[in-house]
């Protein structure tokens, strides 16, 4: 196996009962020091994959390995150097941050001195120093979240698996976590980060894996996706009347249009496959020529979200 491959899934499948396939044949590798975003809408299978990677559930078939060790067979060895935050965990309200972190420090076999030092550092980092000896039951959701993040980095792991880390945080908290993740990049920490907030991911990740309906639909570097998206132009068009299926077909037939998605009854999103401004004007002309009454026409800068939408659209068409 490749020494640099830190996280690897091989044909991972997770079924719940006979009918629900939460993760469908997902395979990927993450190398040392990479910060990888795992993207998809709610219910795409992100958390399920992460739960398998942290031994909270077992896959129906396939394997999940960390540092080459099968997580579900040898969790003790595989998870030794992993810090994780999964979903919105409960945080033992009757204890204090000091007690919780001390317990987990012992689980990770940290020395007393290191536990003491890390409690100070981590609580400082997540802005909970003043609350070190307060019972967690008096904490707000954001504070609990920050403590859970603190727990995940407490033993200075070289691998971080984070599921929706900014969920429940205020804008300031989100910015702090973003900076924190960026600081890990510099320390060669491997980060696997799931989110449905595509904008957040684009700000911190080196590459992204797109998941849809349990299947991995694309993997690419954020830089390359940016390049691709420069080729695209997104235009949102609002019409006077509700659109029929034949109206949509007329728009789809216009050359240079790659994708048309209905936003609501009278609004569509157009993705064109090249960046020439002349074609933007040309599309507007053609739409009007088709007899559709346009009340607003807004070319937009495309982003990761548009890229994802176009991927999902292609996936839907393929089906």
């Amino acid at each position, binding site marked *: 196996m490749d020494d640099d491959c830190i996280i690897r899934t091989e044909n991972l499948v997770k079924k719940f009962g006979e009918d629900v396939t939460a993760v469908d044949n997902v395979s990927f590798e993450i190398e040392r020091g990479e910060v990888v975003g795992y993207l998809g809408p709610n219910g795409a299978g992100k958390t399920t994959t992460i739960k398998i990677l942290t031994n*909270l559930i077992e896959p129906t078939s396939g394997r999940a390995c960390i540092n080459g060790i099968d997580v579900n067979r040898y969790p003790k060895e595989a998870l030794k150097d992993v810090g994780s935050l999964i979903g919105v965990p409960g945080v033992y309200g009757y*204890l204090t941050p000091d*007690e919780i972190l001390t317990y987990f420090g012992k689980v990770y076999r940290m020395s007393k001195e290191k536990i003491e030092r890390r409690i100070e550092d981590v609580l400082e980092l997540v802005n909970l120093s003043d609350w070190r000896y307060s019972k967690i039951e008096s904490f707000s959701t954001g504070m609990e979240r920050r403590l859970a993040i603190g727990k995940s980095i407490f033993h200075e792991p070289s691998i971080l698996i984070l599921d929706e880390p900014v969920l429940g945080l205020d804008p300031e908290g989100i910015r702090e976590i973003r900076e924190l993740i960026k600081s890990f990049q510099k320390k060669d920490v491997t980060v696997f980060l799931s989110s449905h907030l595509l904008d957040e991911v684009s700000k911190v990740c080196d590459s992204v894996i797109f998941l849809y309906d349990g299947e991995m639909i694309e993997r690419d570097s954020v830089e390359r996706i940016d390049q691709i998206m420069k080729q695209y132009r997104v235009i949102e068009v609002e019409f006077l009347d509700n659109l029929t299926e034949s109206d949509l077909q007329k728009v789809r037939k216009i050359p240079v249009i790659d994708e048309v998605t209905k936003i609501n009854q009278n609004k569509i999103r157009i993705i064109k496959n090249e960046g020439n401004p002349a074609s933007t004007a040309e599309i507007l002309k053609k739409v009007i020529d088709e007899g559709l009454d346009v009340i607003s026409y807004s070319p937009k800068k495309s982003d990761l979200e548009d890229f994802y939408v176009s991927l999902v659209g292609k996936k839907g068409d393929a089906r």
Partner: protein
Amino acid sequence: MKSIKEDILEDMKNTCLTVSFELKKHFRMKRMVISFALAIGLPLIFYIVPRIWASFPETAEEFANLNLSFVNLLIIISGSLFAGDAVVGEFEEKTGLLLFSTPQRHTTIFIGKYIGALLPTLTVVTIYYLTTSLEIIGIYGTEGISLEFFKSFFIALVYTSSAVSLIFFFSSILKRKITSTLLGFFSLMMILPIVSSVLQFLVEVEPWYILTYTEGLITGVFVGATPIGGGPGGQPGQFSPDFYQGITIMVVYTVVLFFLSVFISNRRRME
């Protein structure tokens, strides 16, 4: 690569960590205080009330019999408090998302949780017996502490283990802490005793396999209701548990339910 010995030692350390974590939980949630207060307070009632308003029973055995007839209640209350939420709490409160993703075998965590529930319950029973023994010594002198008293203590400890195993089992299969705690409490307090009574008095069959029936041995050793080694017997509707059979049943309940609970908890996942 670790040797098997190192691996086992590490697992034991993890179990000890869970035990201390559980004990801290019980302490913080005031369960320890409540149980310990009951363990001292209940026997004191049997000392103070006769001292002020009546007189003590003639013999130490009678006093012990009267006093220890309430130890079962204490076992059920403490067992429910300490074991009721042991496993289910991690799933219901989602604290398991923090705990189970750490580098520990889940089995070591669940064993730790079991011990963390058993230890304080055993301690509570021990305190109850200690308080009672001090009262007996105070009233009847040291000769009041008979061999039967120690036998009763031993039975109470074994019964405690089986009661904790039963409640821990409910905790491993149910989805709500409150359901698990209440089911554990009412099973030992009402459901099993009712089944036992129905079998004894209506069907006229000795319910030797029912856990709460064997609990009768705790005080049964004092009044001679149980002919030790005599086997099940007596008139229909007047059964009394046999010492060895009762102990065996308690041990079977303890071991089987413990292993079953750990197995089920292990299979249970944070889904």
